[in-house]
């Protein structure tokens, strides 16, 4: 396991921001740590990295007991925590140099080369000498990623890495994460935008109000959610009862689109019965549940509901 936590809890006063979280992040995975704003993602990440002390619970990072072996563990971790932070009066390049000099394995001889490589990787080479003060939000986020990539890492912890980025930037980050994962780096990625990370994650953990609702491989979670039938018909009012008689649940009508949980019923059978009932079927598809559907089914709430 790249990250393992056991009953990790953080209370601010009486409020448990994170409550008994048991994370299992396998080495080599791209783990999407998902949850709406305020669900405790950043607080969890701060605990993982030893910035704040848990109220209860234990954890290991890259197989090392924390916080006892935090220096050894953190040397192999690159992190972006709650947005980038740099000195406004220094250039992007000078900022990276200072950070590199502030810890272990930042050999001076290789520093300039590593900085250029990291800047190139996030597409900041042209802006390297600009003062950080003059960077746009997206450029700042990129510099934060460059800092996390300055040295080879076994684990990257990225807290909302696409925050403030345009769609093009978001796509680039996705490609970068995929590339890193391909190189064997474990990526632990938090986001409140489900759709954004759905495409690149192998594993997912879903947070809500400080609790880890579920975690596992994306495939398993989707299978557990069940497939849904989606039909576009000329008589939606009549279609609902037909599907209901076939044993389909959770029937939702929206305009002339009707969706329902298949529950093992073959879609062709549904189609046949609809047609036999004299209903015109214009389109029919089977959909895997999105993470958003999954979240709704887990909490009974929309994903954007914050506490």
């Amino acid at each position, binding site marked *: 396991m790249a990250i393992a936590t056991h009953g990790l809890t953080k209370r601010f006063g009486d409020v448990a921001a994170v409550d008994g979280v048991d994370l299992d992040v396998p080495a080599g995975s791209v783990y999407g740590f998902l949850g709406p704003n305020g669900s405790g993602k950043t607080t969890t990440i*701060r605990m993982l990295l030893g*910035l704040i002390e848990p109220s209860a619970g234990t954890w290991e990072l890259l197989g090392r007991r924390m916080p006892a072996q935090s220096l050894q563990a*953190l040397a192999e971790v690159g992190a972006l925590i709650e*947005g980038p932070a740099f000195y*406004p009066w220094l250039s992007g390049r000078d900022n990276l*140099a200072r*950070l590199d*000099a502030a*810890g272990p394995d930042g050999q001076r001889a290789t520093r300039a080369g590593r900085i250029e490589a990291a800047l190139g990787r996030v597409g900041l080479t042209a802006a390297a000498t600009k003062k950080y003060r003059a960077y746009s939000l997206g450029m700042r986020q990129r510099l934060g990623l460059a800092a996390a990539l300055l040295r080879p890492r076994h684990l990257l912890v990225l807290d909302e890495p696409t925050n403030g980025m345009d769609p093009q930037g978001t796509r680039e980050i996705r490609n970068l994460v995929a590339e890193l994962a391909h190189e064997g780096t474990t990526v632990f990625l938090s986001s409140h935008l489900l759709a954004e990370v759905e495409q690149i994650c192998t594993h997912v953990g879903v947070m809500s109000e400080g609790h880890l609702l579920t975690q596992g491989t994306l495939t398993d979670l989707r299978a557990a959610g069940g497939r849904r039938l989606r039909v576009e018909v000329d008589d939606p009012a009549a279609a609902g009862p037909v599907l209901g008689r076939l044993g389909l649940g959770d029937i939702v009508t929206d305009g002339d689109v009707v969706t329902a949980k298949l529950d093992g019923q073959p879609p062709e059978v549904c189609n046949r019965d609809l047609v036999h009932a004299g209903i015109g079927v214009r389109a029919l598809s089977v959909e895997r549940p999105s993470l958003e559907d999954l979240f709704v089914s887990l909490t009974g709430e929309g994903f954007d509901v914050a506490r």
Partner: protein
Amino acid sequence: MLIAELRHLFRRTRVRALLIVMFAIPFLLAVAVKINGGPSDGNGPTFLAQVSQNGVFAALAGLTVTIPFFLPLTVAVVSGDTIAGEASIGTLRYLLTRPSGRGRLLGVKAVTTLAYCLAAALAVAAGGLIGGAILFPLGRIISLSGTSLPLIDGIGRTLLAALVVGASLLGLAAIGVFVSTLTDVPVGAMAVTAGIGVLSLILDAVPQVAFVHPWLFTHQQLAFGDLLRTPVRWNNIGKDLLLQLGYVAVFGTAAWARFTTRDVLA
């Protein structure tokens, strides 16, 4: 990391500006003496009366003028910023996860603050020596005990005096670093530190609390003048250095205890 941190500190515009001001004060003092003539004896700060006879005294007069207020103020600015400054812009979380190690980071910050104290006092001495050399004759120094010393000896003693002045700022610097670990607002840490410096000065001037005087970190701040006696009187300088060391030990430990256990939420 120490070298990088020193470069980081002395490259800052703010720090450079402070050092330039420290350099300029004795220089302007020398100019003022040139234009108006020195004060008659007994008027104005110690050493000022001798400036027109020997430029070296501009440096000593500069130290005397800046040690009660200007130097401590700049030390409050630099020491109050050490941890709180990093916290306020968020770089603290990245330094810690780099990982720098909390104890190590604090140690490096403490050493750079010490370097600033010495640099600021040396800037005052340098400004005085250069301004004095340009505007007044240099020559053998008449020590406070009335004996005459070769110029090179006088300059040596002046630089040593600057180091002693720098060292006598360490108590306040240690307080500043400690205050800086308590907050994420650097301006607050600077203000509190400067306030403590002023409080110490005030208490030192109130005879009713004479019993605390020997324990105030500002109490022996003019002891550096004893370097200009023949032979040098080390008594008060020694007391001062011991006192500063005591403050560094107490507030250094407090800062360490606080910083190595606090939650970093900024």
